[in-house]
């Protein structure tokens, strides 16, 4: 076979491969403030313009992603999933996949640390894996079984990791990448908020077996003691703080609670169906309804629902990009 034909075949093959990988999605305007929802049921990501409170675009993806992180550059959109053996990076402005990191299956959560580092909770390895933004893994710290929720104390440089079905919290020195002594927490813990000035870690959860979690457990970060329980039935799983107020979503009762730092419930409202995630964008609280496949914009002060935006099916996590 003449060399020219061989080259042509190779060229065609490369084009084919490139064609397969270079799936193009609708680009996301660079200047917009964006809330991206990762939708589990239809494997999609919906992009919502936060200012206009309307959907801008929807990407139907090929892998079952469960969560994501937007890089400090505001353009790189990282997606991971427990059953996917890569972490995939997309460019929001181009609408294409730009890179993928072969990390193996088991990544259930990701957190941006100090704008130049990523921590991933790996449920298969029962560890927190640290990567730089170029995808090279530089440290791994073992945790209790099934790490899920992570929260960072920037002041202390500590990473708190909740073990999902093991009643133990793992404390990690984020700088030295060393595991410190943890403490016992409630079972099936999910969602955590650190109140650094009070040295408190508020921990939510689903509850074990038939027992439904009704409370947020407040632990002292130094001692690990259970200081108090805040009744926010049922199944509080995510928190967001705005000044002196803490907002808690309980997915078992589809309720959003507004709680002060003392743990006193000031207000509550029924929100969208089965919310797993809450985020704060300016004055608006964003709550994703996993069952109703929508996002609600809720005024943080009055707790009134300003807008409801339909997204892909089963929004599980909201990722914000604010300029």
């Amino acid at each position: 076979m003449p060399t020219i034909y061989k080259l042509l075949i190779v060229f065609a093959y490369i084009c084919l491969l490139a064609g397969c990988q270079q799936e193009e999605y609708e680009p996301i305007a660079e200047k917009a403030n964006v809330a991206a929802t990762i939708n589990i049921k239809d494997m999609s990501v919906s992009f919502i313009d936060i200012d206009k409170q309307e959907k801008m675009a929807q990407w139907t993806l090929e892998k079952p992603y469960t969560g994501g992180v937007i890089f400090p550059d505001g353009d790189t959109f990282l997606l991971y999933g427990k059953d996917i053996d890569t972490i995939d990076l997309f460019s929001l402005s181009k609408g294409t996949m730009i890179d993928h990191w072969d990390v193996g299956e088991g990544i259930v959560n990701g957190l941006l640390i100090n704008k130049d580092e990523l921590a991933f909770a790996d449920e298969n390895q029962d560890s927190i894996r640290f990567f730089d933004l170029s995808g090279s893994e530089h440290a791994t710290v073992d945790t209790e079984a099934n790490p899920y929720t992570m929260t960072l104390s920037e002041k202390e440089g500590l990473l708190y990791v909740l073990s999902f079905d093991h009643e133990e919290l793992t404390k990690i020195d984020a700088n030295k990448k060393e595991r410190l002594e943890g403490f016992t927490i409630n079972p099936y813990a999910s969602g955590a908020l650190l109140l650094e000035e009070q040295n408190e870690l508020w921990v939510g959860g689903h509850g074990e077996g038939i027992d439904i979690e009704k409370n947020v457990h407040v632990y002292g970060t130094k001692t690990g003691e259970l200081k108090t329980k805040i009744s926010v039935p049922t199944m509080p799983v995510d928190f967001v703080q705005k000044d002196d107020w803490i907002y808690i979503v309980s997915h078992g009762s589809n309720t959003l609670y507004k709680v002060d730092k003392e743990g006193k419930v000031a207000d509550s409202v029924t929100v969208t169906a089965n919310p797993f995630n809450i985020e704060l964008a300016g004055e608006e609280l964003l709550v994703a309804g996993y069952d109703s496949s929508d996002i609600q914009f809720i005024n943080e002060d009055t707790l009134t629902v300003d807008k409801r935006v339909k997204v892909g099916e089963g929004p599980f996590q909201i990722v914000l990009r604010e300029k």
Partner: protein
Amino acid sequence: MKFLTDTLAKKLWLTVTAAIFITILYSYALSYLFYEKLYVENVEESLLEEGLALASDYHDGPLTDEFKGHVAWYNTKSETDVFIVNNPRELSACFPFQMNYDSLINGAERDELLKGNPIFKSGYEDRFNGRIMAVIVPLLDESRLEGIIYLYLPLEKISDITKDFAYLWMIAAFLFLIVAMISGTALVKKMTSPLLEMKRAAEQVSKGDYEVSIKNQSQDEIGQLANAFNTMADSIRQEDERKREFLANVSHELRTPISYVKGYSEALKIGLVKNEEDYQKYLELIYREAGRMERLVGDLLDLSKLETEEYQLVKMPIPLAQLIEDSLQKYLPRIKEKGLELEYDLDPEIIINADEGRLEQIIQNIMDNALRYTESGSLSLHLYETEEGCCIELVDSGIGIPAEDLDKIKQRFYRVNKARTRADGGTGLGLAIAEKLVNLHEGELTIESTLGKGTTVRIYLPIIIE
């Protein structure tokens, strides 16, 4: 197995029995299926109705204790087990998380309920430690699944009912089987008994007893076979009779000339004859009888040849008038001698496709007969065209044939006057041969006659159409 299938009756019986068995089993299975399906559908429907009726009392928001109380009260009154579930864990609310808990409904069912659709379940459920039939009705506040109403019945209750049904069925089927087998056996016997009778009759026929007849009432295939058998036996009997008669006739016909020849030759041999005149007369008689035997044997040979299928005519186009005229020539002296008048009118245009020699033989045979039985008067011969061909018509003013003998006249050796001597020289085979030959030419020979007035012979033949 062979002893089961060695007779048709057993085979039929087996087939009938098997058919009955299969029908019973099949209809049992089918009706069981239908019954269960109908019953199950009915139960499902009523469960759903109950569930929807209960759910209609629910209005938005979390489930109230009052509502739960209502359902609990209803549960005490209803045969159905009804309960309300609003524990999000049981409703798979935490589905994306692995809760290590076997929820009452799974993720897919939750999705279905979220659409507002009820769920139907039938089969083994771990939770109830048995087989159940259940309907789950969602209690939705917009798209929030606040709870479900779970209604179920243990499947044992349902199978209890089908069990009763099965017993009833079995008893009915058993009775039906007995009745069906008895009537089946009778039917098979009725169907096969004519066959057995036919077998016996066939054995009798092969032993030479042709007088058998199968009594048969039915008109079905077996009845038709029995009728055909009877007809066949009758035909064989008639043929046998004809054969006997024929043999008797042949021997009878031969015996007369033989006794003549024997008697006269004996007289000559022992010198009974005194003068030359008698001597010549005796010789003449012997010669005549030998000639008659020759003709008889010749005719018999012809007849037997004609009766074989391979007999072939050598056909060619023949101007019929010419042929008839030629044939008549040799009769003119005899006609003149008897003092008869001959009148003939022949259409010269008629040409037929025929075997010349055989056609001559036909004419000769009918002319012989006409001359033989006409002592005075006239003979008239006509040839004319008919719609379908042509007709040779020979009318004599002879003695005629009695009406009762007319249809038998064409049979071999049949004579109107049995006592008549053979002095006229006929063999009794002339008309039989003539008819055979006419038939071979695809024609027809008919005879009309009035006793004492004369006879008309008509031969219809196809012609060549130009």
